[in-house]
């Protein structure tokens, strides 16, 4: 009797210790993420300049779908998402499965080199790519020397080429990052599976689709959700690589929201409404990806 009472209090004591351990982190997330989220929701139904806000109902939500710049930004985010994320993830998968091959040497060297871009800051690599693709930049010099161009092409001055530069930069910066996740995931797969598949006559491409992809599915899902989330929130690249230009042709949603909040005459209510669309898109896409991820079993 006495003994069980003591045990119960020990368990309670431990449970309390657990709550004490997790409370600071939970409080910070509540105050720094959830509370502002709710405040932003209220803001999104108000409009006005600076601090003079008045309730306007859903006006902001209607307005953003008639705002050509925001529609362009939305389109741009989706262009980056649809083109860049699949290319990057497939490339990362191929690199990871090559580096998982026991027959190859210098794997550490390759892995380090391919991961290195992740150590550069977003602003830095945006500036590097901006300089490389400038009219007098190295890419143009090489293209002229090779005879493809007679004068420097203004890559960042044309909408489509500017978008391609952003996509190339994103692939350069993030492929190694995703590759590390896949390499870690591959370590949990018994290498003997590959060897027995080989004995059964499977080609490397067959074992890639038949073994690697299905067994890595949870990791692929994780990276897909992370990249989707990241792409929908692109900011630094748009600000520092293309300045959103030429004339807002490459601007992203986060960049435009920043401009509406802090660069132009501030309209916090309208900015909050646009940011809720990002939240909505992130949530819907994450949900869809999880559904699709479940189905393929």
């Amino acid at each position: 009797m006495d003994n069980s009472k003591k045990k119960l209090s020990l368990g309670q004591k431990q449970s309390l210790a657990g709550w004490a351990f997790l409370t600071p982190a939970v409080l910070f997330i509540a105050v720094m993420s959830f509370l502002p989220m709710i405040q932003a929701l209220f803001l999104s139904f108000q409009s006005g300049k600076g601090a003079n806000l008045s309730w306007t109902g859903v006006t902001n939500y209607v307005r953003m779908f008639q705002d050509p710049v925001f529609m362009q930004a939305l389109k741009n985010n989706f262009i980056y998402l649809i083109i860049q994320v699949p290319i990057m993830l497939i490339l990362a998968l191929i690199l990871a499965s090559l580096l998982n091959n026991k027959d190859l040497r210098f794997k550490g060297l390759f892995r380090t080199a391919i991961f290195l871009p992740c150590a550069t800051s977003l602003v830095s690599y945006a500036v590097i790519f901006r300089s490389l693709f400038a009219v007098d930049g190295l890419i143009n010099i090489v293209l002229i020397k090779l005879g493809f161009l007679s004068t420097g092409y203004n890559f960042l001055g044309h909408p489509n080429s500017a978008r391609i530069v952003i996509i190339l930069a994103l692939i350069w910066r993030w492929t190694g990052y995703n590759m590390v996740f896949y390499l870690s995931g591959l370590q949990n797969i018994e290498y003997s599976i590959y060897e027995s598949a080989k004995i059964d006559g499977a080609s490397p491409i067959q074992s890639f689709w038949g073994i690697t992809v299905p067994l890595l599915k949870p990791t692929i899902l994780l990276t897909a959700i992370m990249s989707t989330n990241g792409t929908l929130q692109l900011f630094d690249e748009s600000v520092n690589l293309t300045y959103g230009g030429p004339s807002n042709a490459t601007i992203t949603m986060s960049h435009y929201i920043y401009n509406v909040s802090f660069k132009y005459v501030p309209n916090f209510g309208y900015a909050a409404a646009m940011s809720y669309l990002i939240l909505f898109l992130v949530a819907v896409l994450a949900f869809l990806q999880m559904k699709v991820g479940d189905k393929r079993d």
Partner: protein
Amino acid sequence: MTKGKKFLAYSFLTVVSLLSVFPLYWMMVAATNKSVAVSRGTLMFGTELLNNTKKLFASQNVYAALGNSFKYSIVMTLISLFICSIAGYGFEIFHDKAKDRVMSIILLAMMVPFAAIMIPLYQMFSKANLLNSTLGFILPSISTPFLIMMFRQSARSFPVDIMEAARLDGLNEFQIFCRMFIPTMRSTYAAAMTITFMNAWNSYLWPKVIMSDANSITMPMMVANLKSGYVTDYGTLMLAVLLCTIPTVIVFFLLQKSFAEGITGAVK
């Protein structure tokens, strides 16, 4: 693998590796050359490093930006690692239904886009007089669901026997965490440290919002300010980019091995 296939694999890996390293190599080359030489397409290291350094330090408050970036990132990393690791430990070791439910709510915060909370946070911080301060820099991302989840995963492999033995020795729960868990989970801490330091050092949007004072700016902000001038001096610009990149590269190389191990633990 046949010889031909091996050759293909090596060629592919070599090309990708070169493409990955080249922009960084070019950055170093440009930092040691005159702007004119860079525009002419030089790929050789030059002798202008000292002059570029003089020009950069004369035109920008590099000391302040470097100092601030180090201060903000180190403070952020230390506090964040402690708060998130103890939370992850608490969620896993003492888990019950209520705590699991709290965890799943917390994970929702991962989906919150920063643009959405940026304005209320800005208003909150300007009222609390936290603009242009270290505290203002670190508070919004001091506790992240990603780190908590990472430590929660790694706490799963923390042996129960050690805890029981430590309790018999009279250690309380907090002491067990500090003296048993932290030393055992060194590789997870290294991975978390790399990620947190890099994120803090590289963050740009939030400091751009709250650091309006020239003495509070960070390295990425300084680089961004440099490039918005009318004439681009590639030499000094790339030197600034180089200075902004060196710290994170050093952290990455120092912790690379444990980083890979820590991620492996977290993905499992």
